[in-house]
């Protein structure tokens, strides 16, 4: 785009709205449009990944193999993870970042709008390629989302498509992250100092650095797999002088920070919602920032706790046990801060608050089982069992996913200008919360009692708990249709939202109209406004 072109548009810039029709979405460089695209995309992927989970739970409803071939079952567990991690949680957080970060900082848009468009539009292509492997002769990836060699190298030629799609997703994530970092450092309104930023912005800033640091490592690892598979290298084959365990080290050097990539923005969301509905400032803002940074730092030195059974030297096992246990300190600080924020507030329990409290309670349960998993001798029993499945689903479903749902209920009045249906929202919360526990809690039991993960069939003593978990899965899955209904209903109409929306809300996003105009903060907010609207 030439300079004169930009100048030409300059005059009527204030008035121009979105282009009509499909072009609006294809060519948009508007942070709100792109945010919306990301959010709809991840909602769609949520149901695709969810359908895969239901295939898994249907097969595990009773012992014996009734529905799918074990190979397809393995494909489902692998693909479910890839879709949920890279297609749902990550893009949904990016969508929220797009919508909210410029508004929270008093900025007119993201720093790099065209890059923004590109980083979104890569995603549908990446996932079309990824999902298409399920329809290829050699089937989808079936070696687990962790792609451990040599198993993953046994895959047919759809393997190349999987690697290609992962590269695309990685490029999208890195571009999105660069954009977020650039926005936060360059686009803050005058007077919006770093320590006045909402925690959602802080947690995303740190998350973006985690992504920039680790996605290239992951890209390297999968490229080495690709050359091992097709070009005769032996990075991960002992027969050629390589080492299969080296892949795990490289993978988890990415994979563990990735775990925090999936949860840090959630911490930011919860830190916005709880003060609003407690009508009381966030307790310990500074310590929240430092705790987030500490978690991010520690996330780089704990990776081998995923590998306690691979046969590491004792010194390494001790180091990774201690460093992993350390993570519970800053994580504990966060939970304590949220509780202290609630303490002596004047709470109300609208749907976003319900999901936020559900998050704090159930994320804590997942965090505590994580602390158990850190104890290496015990981990040797837990590793590779349903106990681990229970743990990470507690932090990801009533954790990350709940934060996304809470964020949607919290900000959707600002996005659409309409209030959502509070009654349906509450029903959504209660059905989700009951079923999510029915689904995941029994997994602790079967895991401890000896049921390995990633198996399509199990011994008879696990039958009852698995049946209960499957019932929970279908209940939870169908409850999310209600969520779609509430969102669609809210987009189409409803009680008009005020600009503040929530009585106790603090932040620049609540100072603009509802729905937020297509362009916000074309002139920076005043320092007084900023100082009035931060914790």
């Amino acid at each position, binding site marked *: 785009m030439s300079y004169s072109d930009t100048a030409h548009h300059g005059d009527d810039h204030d008035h121009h709205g979105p282009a009509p029709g499909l072009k609006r979405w294809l060519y948009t460089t508007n942070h709100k449009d792109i945010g919306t695209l990301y959010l709809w995309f991840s909602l769609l992927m949520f149901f695709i990944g969810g359908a895969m989970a239901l295939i898994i739970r249907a097969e595990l409803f009773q012992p014996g193999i009734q529905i799918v071939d074990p190979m397809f079952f393995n494909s489902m567990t692998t693909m479910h993870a890839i879709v949920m991690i890279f297609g749902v949680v990550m893009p949904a957080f990016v969508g929220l970042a797009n919508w909210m970060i410029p508004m929270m900082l008093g900025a007119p848009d993201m720093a790099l709008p065209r890059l923004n468009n590109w980083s979104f539009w890569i995603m549908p292509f990446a996932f079309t390629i990824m999902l298409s492997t399920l329809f290829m002769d050699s089937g989808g990836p079936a070696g687990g989302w962790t792609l451990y060699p040599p198993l993953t190298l046994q895959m047919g030629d759809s393997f190349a498509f999987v690697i290609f799609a992962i590269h695309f997703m990685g490029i999208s994530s890195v571009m999105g992250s660069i954009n977020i970092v650039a926005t936060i450092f360059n686009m803050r309104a005058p007077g919006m100092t770093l320590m006045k930023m909402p925690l959602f912005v802080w947690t995303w800033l740190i998350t973006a650095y985690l992504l920039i640091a680790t996605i290239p490592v992951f890209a390297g690892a999968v490229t080495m797999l690709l050359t091992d598979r097709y070009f005769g290298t032996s990075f991960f084959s002992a027969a050629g002088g390589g080492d299969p365990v080296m892949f795990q080290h490289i993978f988890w050097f990415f994979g563990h920070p990735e775990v925090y990539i999936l949860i840090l923005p959630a911490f930011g969301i919860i830190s916005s919602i709880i003060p609003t509905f407690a009508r009381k400032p966030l307790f310990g803002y500074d310590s929240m920032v430092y705790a987030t940074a500490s978690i991010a730092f520690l996330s780089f030195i704990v990776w081998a706790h995923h590998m306690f059974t691979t046969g590491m030297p004792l010194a390494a096992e001790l180091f990774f046990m201690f460093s992993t246990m350390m993570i519970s300190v800053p994580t504990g600080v966060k939970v304590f801060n949220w509780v202290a924020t609630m303490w002596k507030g004047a709470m109300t329990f609208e749907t976003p608050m319900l999901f936020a409290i559900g998050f704090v309670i159930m994320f804590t349960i997942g965090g505590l089982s994580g602390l158990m998993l850190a104890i290496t001798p015990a981990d040797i029993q837990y590793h590779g069992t349903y106990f681990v499945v229970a743990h990470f689903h507690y932090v990801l479903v009533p954790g990350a996913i709940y934060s996304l749902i809470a964020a949607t209920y919290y900000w959707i009045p600002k996005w659409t200008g309409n209030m959502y249906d509070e009654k349906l929202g509450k029903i959504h919360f209660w059905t989700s919360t009951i079923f999510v*526990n029915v689904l995941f809690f029994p997994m602790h039991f079967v895991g401890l009692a000896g049921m390995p993960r990633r198996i399509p069939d199990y011994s008879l003593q696990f039958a009852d708990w698995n049946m209960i978990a499957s019932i929970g899965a279908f209940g939870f899955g169908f409850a999310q249709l209600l969520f779609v209904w509430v969102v669609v209903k809210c987009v189409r109409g409803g009680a008009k939202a005020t600009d503040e929306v929530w009585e106790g809300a603090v932040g620049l996003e609540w100072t603009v109209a509802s729905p937020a105009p297509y362009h916000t903060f074309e002139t920076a907010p005043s320092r007084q406004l900023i100082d009035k609207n931060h914790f």
Partner: protein
Amino acid sequence: MRTRKHWLPMALVIAALGIPLLGMPLAAIAGYGDVLNMPVGVTEISKKVYGLHMLIFKICCVIGALVFAVMIYSMVMHRKSKGVTPATFHESTTVEIVWTVVPFVILLLMAWPAAKVLIQMEDFSDSEMTVKVTAYQWRWHYDYIDEGVNYYSQLAADHNVARQKDSGVDLSGFENYIREVDNPLVVPVGKKIRFLHTAADVLHAWWVPALAVKKDSIPGFINENWARIEEPGVYRGKCAELCGRDHGFMPIVVRAVSQEEFDAFIAEQKAAGQTAELDSERQWAKSELLARGEEVYQRNCVSCHQANGKGIPGMFPSIHGSEIATGDIVRHLQTVMDGVEGSPMQAFGSSLSDIDLASVITYQRNDLGNDMGDVMQPYYVKRLRSGTTSVSALDLELNSLTSGISTGVSN
């Protein structure tokens, strides 16, 4: 927008905590005691691991209960509907230091016993016998290194039938459904047994919960762990690392017996080995080879090539009418022995005996819709394996024996 219903916070808490906290004792009463928790196990280490598990579990319960109690109290007392005015405090350095330091101290107290157990687990000194465990897709090979006995162990045949899709078998008749093997690992009680772990193809993990041993089997590397079993009995486990299609179907059975029983077992295995040795020298009838070949096929080949030999298009090639099974017999043997690189077809040369290889080759060529008419004798396999004959010499010899089959030039 706001609700004033007083039951909401309590109901929230009941939903989030009630199921876990009430569910567990209720389930225990209902008779799920052994499907709720980690087994205590039968080794000193497993008991210590169980102790650590229960200690950290209780610490977590106390921390969780405290945090949730404060939340519940706050949700009940600090509600807008009670007419409270919100406080405005938002920081306290003292409190922040307290809730950083206290958890840290708890962790230190926990780290100490955990490290002690870990150090003991990693102490392999003074082991009294060694079993090398090699993992294959999808079975285990046990090698009693000092005793010179080795054999394979895999899912028991009737379980293997029952677990197939749409098998129609009533599973309630299987007490240990998919936890039973053909040849269990037999070990003596009271001895410090060192296990060496490796794999032939992909990663696996040998896990027996009652012994608190789990270690990855990694191709090209040898891992170790150990157990000293205190009580005789049968202890079951599973492969714990995703290893492909039949990952769920490679159980482990360890039978711990007295030293006398163990000695008798080893003697018996040695005698059986000698009989097999003699058997591989004699001429086998085609019907014998076919009968045995079917068994070997069922055990080793069906999961990929399927019971009808037609494989799964795009994933696993068909044997019915295949170029290899209807082509040169020596090349067929070589393919089965050496595997196909870059595919799930593994090298069966190391895992199947001469008789098994000869019979499965014969079976594949004369069944599964193939009708080649030729047979492979165990002693040919033996000669090829020991290097007393070359591929081309064997090719010539076999082709002159079989009439009416065109083999062409394959080498």
